[in-house]
């Protein structure tokens, strides 16, 4: 069990393009375990490896951690990328690595994501709604992109997060 701290901007790893990872990498099981442990210990629904200090194209997503959300359940994916997206909308999103603030960004309500499973199988997923948004956010992390790169106005698109009751 290794819960690693979530790195906060301006940690430079968050702005770096992450490197591809191979399913035969002998360190992969450790990376995955750390990702799952860190996700379980966080209030979020997804994590990208750079957020815990690994500059690798590895994400974990489980939107069912949010009450009422449905999706594919827990997914661990290597080298994910978006093949296609449609139905743009503006959503207000936050990020564990940029605490206390949320921003209005343009995302897509539906996406086709291609990735590799930890077992080395290619997979294509159709994701929609909240799960599609989570994928776009995490794949941005793999490119070194934060929601701060996507907002268009600090006065109308950036908000201090409301205090949790």
């Amino acid at each position, binding site marked *: 069990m290794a819960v690693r701290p979530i790195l906060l901007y301006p940690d430079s790893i968050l702005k770096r393009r992450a490197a591809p990872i191979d399913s035969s990498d002998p360190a992969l099981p450790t990376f995955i375990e750390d990702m799952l442990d860190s996700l379980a210990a966080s209030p979020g629904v997804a994590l990208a490896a750079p957020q815990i200090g690994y500059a690798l194209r590895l994400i974990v997503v489980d939107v069912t951690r949010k009450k009422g959300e449905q999706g594919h359940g827990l997914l661990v994916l290597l080298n994910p990328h978006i093949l296609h997206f449609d139905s743009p909308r503006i959503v207000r999103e936050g990020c564990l690595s940029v605490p206390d603030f949320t921003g209005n960004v343009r995302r897509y309500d539906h996406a086709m994501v291609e990735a590799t499973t930890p077992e080395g199988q290619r997979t294509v997923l159709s994701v929609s709604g909240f799960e599609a948004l989570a994928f776009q956010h995490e794949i941005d992390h793999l490119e070194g992109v934060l929601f701060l790169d996507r907002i268009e106005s600090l006065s109308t698109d*950036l908000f201090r997060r409301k205090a949790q009751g």
Partner: protein
Amino acid sequence: MLSVYGADRPGIVAKVARIVADHDGNITDVNTRVIGTPEQPVYVMLLEVLLPPDQEPVQLERALEALKSSLGVDVSLRTIEQLRF
């Protein structure tokens, strides 16, 4: 649309504005915020920049890239498509 953000320090506005001016860019809108935590404040600046038709955004982008190391900021530039109906 130009996003500049990084650890808060003096000179960020001045150096970004200088580079935009050197590329004949006109700053038509700018706003700034300090976010992050009290221990680690992050300065965020968003600028709308109008470039003359003969000026390629890529040249401005390259010049801004140099700021990343000298000022310790992150920079992203994206073009806004103008549509007329």
